């Protein structure tokens, strides 16, 4: 039953999936294409000219290496921004949004259990985010081979996995808070707060206290520079664990509350 609901949810989301895929592919292709064109020395000089605080705050890395450039542009900045927006809005919409519009009522009053509806939609959302992550990975692989960025397939996979899981964590939080409360505004607010706080904790945390940065999902994703160093199993496991915890907490509440009130 969950599989049927997941398939249907993805079927209904296919137009959005296509749109976000095109957008992410375009951004990845466009930014990474500049790498081959730019003079490495000029980039190095440019980086050196930036105030140190700014480099830190934006998470810029060495722009002269392929991995550093990809991380500074697509993986650390625009990619997460787009993927988080896509995942959050879909995550909020999947239960809380459909509940507010009334469209959820025709599914929960069918011969499906509430938990099937929840799990089915959670699986659909997961598939949605994974598909977008795969688009970024694919576009990176294509451009890397053309421009000679020197990114190995395993490193691309490692970077894309980190990006995807970062998107999925936020999608799951949006989904779960929405399913637990039925309030799209609350779900979106909480998730945006998690994203923004996580971003600051990752980039500026070390200036505040030692314990701040390790709490950030951004640190779990990018702390070990996966594009450069390869798969960071611990980081991915932490992201997967938080995703699972969010989904489970939402599932504990959703079947037991009034819908659409």
């Amino acid at each position: 039953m969950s599989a049927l609901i997941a398939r249907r949810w993805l079927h209904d989301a296919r137009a959005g999936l296509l749109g976000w895929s095109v957008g992410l592919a375009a951004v990845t292709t466009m930014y990474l294409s500049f790498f081959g064109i730019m003079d490495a020395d000029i980039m190095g000089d440019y980086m050196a000219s930036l105030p140190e605080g700014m480099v830190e705050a934006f998470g810029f890395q060495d722009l002269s290496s392929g991995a550093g450039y990809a991380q500074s542009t697509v993986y650390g900045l625009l990619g997460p921004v787009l993927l988080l927006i896509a995942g959050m809005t879909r995550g909020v919409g999947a239960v809380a949004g459909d509940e507010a519009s009334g469209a959820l009522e025709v599914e929960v009053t069918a011969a499906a259990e509430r938990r099937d509806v929840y799990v089915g939609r959670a699986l659909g959302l997961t598939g949605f985010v994974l598909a977008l992550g795969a688009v970024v990975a694919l576009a990176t692989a294509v451009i890397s081979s053309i421009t000679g960025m020197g990114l190995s397939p395993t490193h691309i996979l490692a970077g894309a996995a980190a990006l995807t899981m970062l998107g999925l964590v936020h999608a799951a939080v949006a989904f779960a808070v929405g399913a637990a409360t039925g309030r799209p505004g609350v779900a979106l607010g909480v998730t945006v707060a998690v994203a923004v706080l996580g971003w600051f904790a990752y980039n500026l945390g070390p200036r505040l206290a030692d314990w701040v940065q390790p709490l950030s999902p951004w640190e779990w994703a990018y702390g070990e520079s996966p594009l450069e160093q390869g798969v960071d199993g611990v980081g991915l496991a932490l992201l997967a664990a938080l995703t699972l915890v969010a989904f489970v907490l939402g599932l504990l509440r959703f079947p037991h509350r009034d819908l659409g009130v």
Partner: protein
Amino acid sequence: MSEVVIETEGLSKDFGPTHALQGLDLTVRAGDVFGFIGPNGAGKSTTMRILMDVLRPTSGTVRVLGTDPRTGGGRLRARIGYLPGELALDGRSEVGSWLDYQARLHGAAPGAWRPYAERLGLDPGRRIGKLSRGNKQKVGLARAFAHSPELLVLDEPTGGLDPLMQQEFLVMVREARAAGQTIFLSSHILSELEHVAETVGVLRQGRLVTSAPLTELRDRLGTTVTVETEHPLDPAPVGRLEGVEEVHADGTVLTVDLHGSPDALLKHLAAHHVVHLRAEAPDLETSVLRLYHDDEEADR
């Protein structure tokens, strides 16, 4: 006595400070067409949504087809066809593909909805988002009827349907009734239920004012007799006659609300020169409205 399909005892539902249902005792028997009538906000939709386990009661008990909706889950809902009062459908889907999906969700064969869509004149190829309110309602009706459920719970089913389709809907309800299905439907307009319901439950402010077979309700409402005589009649002695509930005099025209036999009234009138006499069943709509009203007076 036939089997009880829906039974609520002392059913209450609060939304914060609002008491939507206040101790509702409702019984719907197998094979009945039960019309649930009441003004907007009386608690009709709330009751139906509790039956479908969308909402959970604050107190009281509910049994649908012998099971508590809270524990019956999907297996129970497979035996029910539900039309929500505020039907919201995903506009991106095509009618046919969505109804196929819903049939699968209800454990029915895909395409089970086709005969109903055809009868209601629904084009399966159209996108739901492009449909008018009436056509969306037809999608909702096809969904509710498709899996031939034992119980149909229809919240304001005729809303948005044109008169021709309302007729078709009545035929569908009669057929369902003939096939042994139980129909529990609501409306805030009695005339919509008059042609289809066998039993009527009147709901007001979360309480059942009355629940009775429609014929019994009609009998209870009696007859209105209008008499025109050559000379004005004194209403006082008429009011004391057996069976007369109320008398209203306007010149030579006397309007009498009669319950039971008209014998005493006719014998009294025989002594006078009657120019014109008309007896009719009172309009059910106004009478039921009066029922709400009486109840309101009793509250004070």
